[in-house]
């Protein structure tokens, strides 16, 4: 599996997923997209597909094909898509020519906003509201990236092959957010919120501890022992998920 393809899968299914929270938790974006009514299909030649729908202030990002998208964006390769995600390339518009202006200005504005929240600086992280949203998005990216890495990356596949069936919850205390990953016979289904009857839990003491942990700025074993990170249940599942998460920086 080539690196660009794995990266495209991560960008499409894990990074873009954060648009859903951006329109909810970033007041500037929320106000901006309030009246949008558009569905955008992303097609990557020899690569994955996904779409996002903006409707009445809500954004939904899904895998696969939308039945009647108002806009279709084509990328001639995974690399082409990854370049766009890095702000260095433009898609080919296959459908929705009347929306060209929208894509160039409005949609670009929210993707820039997404980038703002996903690429923190030490200074930005001192702001609690920024920290909260960055942490929430990092958590979502992690959960949805686990599926892609577990299915596509050779080392990720190996780590995933040792994970027993059942769900794993990652939760930031005291009140969330929470994500889960459901492992079933080699498949992985990530989701937001808590899975019922998880086989393993990882709870992070607060957003700061979670942010440090998710961005690899903490000594994980020390964090677990000191109570910043709390683990319970089938710890080998968490260990394997951690091995998969370790692979993300190789691509993103």
């Amino acid at each position: 599996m080539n690196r660009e393809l794995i990266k495209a899968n991560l960008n499409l299914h894990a990074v873009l997923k954060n648009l859903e929270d951006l329109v909810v938790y970033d007041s500037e974006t929320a106000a901006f997209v309030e009246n949008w009514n558009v569905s955008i299909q992303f097609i990557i030649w020899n690569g994955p597909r996904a779409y996002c729908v903006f409707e009445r202030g809500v954004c939904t990002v899904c895998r696969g094909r939308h039945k009647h998208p108002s806009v279709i964006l084509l990328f001639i390769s995974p690399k082409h898509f990854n370049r766009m995600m890095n702000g260095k390339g433009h898609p080919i518009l296959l459908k929705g020519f009347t929306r060209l202006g929208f894509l160039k200005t409005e949609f670009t504005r929210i993707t820039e906003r997404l980038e703002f929240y996903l690429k923190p600086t030490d200074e930005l992280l001192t702001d609690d509201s920024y920290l909260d949203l960055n942490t929430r998005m990092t958590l979502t990216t992690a959960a949805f990236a686990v599926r892609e890495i577990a299915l596509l990356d050779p080392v990720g596949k190996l780590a995933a092959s040792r994970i027993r069936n059942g769900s794993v919850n990652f939760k930031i205390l005291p009140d969330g957010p929470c994500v889960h990953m459901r492992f079933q016979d080699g498949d992985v289904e990530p989701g937001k919120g808590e899975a019922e009857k998880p086989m393993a839990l990882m709870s992070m003491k607060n957003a700061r501890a979670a942010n440090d942990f998710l961005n690899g700025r903490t000594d994980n074993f020390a964090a677990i022992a000191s109570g910043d990170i709390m683990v319970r249940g089938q710890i080998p599942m968490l260990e394997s998920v951690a091995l998969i998460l370790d692979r993300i920086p190789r691509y993103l």
Partner: protein
Amino acid sequence: MKQKLCQYTKSRETFKRATKVIPGGIYGHLSPAPLVPSNAYPFYALRARGSRFWDVDGNEFIDYMCAYGPIILGYHHDKVDAAARQQYEAASCVTAATPVMVELAEYLVDLIPIADWAFFAKNGGDVTSFALMLARAATGRKKIVMIEGAYHGVAPWAQAPAHPGVMDDDHKNYLRIGWNDAAQFERVVSENAGEIAGFIATPYHHPVFADNELPRDGYWQKIEELCRKRGIVLIVDDVRCGFRLDLRGSNEYFGFKPDLICLSKAMGNGYPISALVGTESLKSVASRVFFTGTYWFSAAPMAAAMATLEELKRINGPRIVCEAGKKLTDGLVQIARGYGYDLKVSGHPSMPYLRITNDESMMLHQDWCGECTKRGAYFCSHHNWFISTAHTEIDIEKTWDIADNALKALKNKPA
């Protein structure tokens, strides 16, 4: 009887200091990370004697981990300590080897039927790696068959693939098969005809976070037969079980004869030593493979090992730890049943693995082990326990009381 719950203020303070200067604070198998919940466990011990240890906060624990296996006669056994002290005072780490090394080798050769020679090192992982080198040197073949999920130390070949620092190439010549599956071994041997140097396995399967499994009837005999037929060196990693099931080697307990046996843990009752013992046919190759370590010739641990083995033989240590383990776990099973819990005991009674089966996620079991530890019985939820000959009837009865109180606390705990 209401029991005082341990507090760990000093343990946590010490750990905080440790995280600044030691990776992970405490690394490796003593890392608190798998101790769940971590706030139920002490991290630092101050002293130990017999079946117990005391932590830096002054809490006292009946210890069912025995330092993860080395302690079989109890902490600070008088005879063992005296032998070590005497040797330390005479000579331990010296420019020349010491006679106690020869005495210990002679003792092991007399004690263990398959042993015609002994080689000493410090840790189990030293001798498992050495055993594989011998198998390769002796056969001229490169592949090793091992059991999926088995523990043989921390060398890259022994770690699970995909772990940090472990490369794909580290696993290139290792074939992993399921435990208790002689047919799979036969298949792998046939598919890799003439390429397999050795088969390494523990006497029975004792992974972490999972029930332990004894060998099926005829399993080891079939493995031995295939190894003999195909010229494969049969290696038993007896590091954890050694001297607990049978002083002559756990293979004698299960009725088979390996070519090499890796020993450590209980051998020195806490003094750092390991040994590889083997058959005459591998003695010459063992002398040709260069393998050594700075402290491998230290004489005091060898003197301690002599004293440990002599004492174990004198008192029939394996019988004592087996009976004590059986008594302890039978009682715990009964107590758990009284609360509606099914406590499953697997493995050998002298090093049992326990798990409350009512909750597949293990959270309930982790909570129970944590509650017991806070009350003074150090229970580990992810690893098999170890019983020593120093565990008394009084210890066991006190442990039952603690286990009962802990279950009561769990029952009363809000969901």
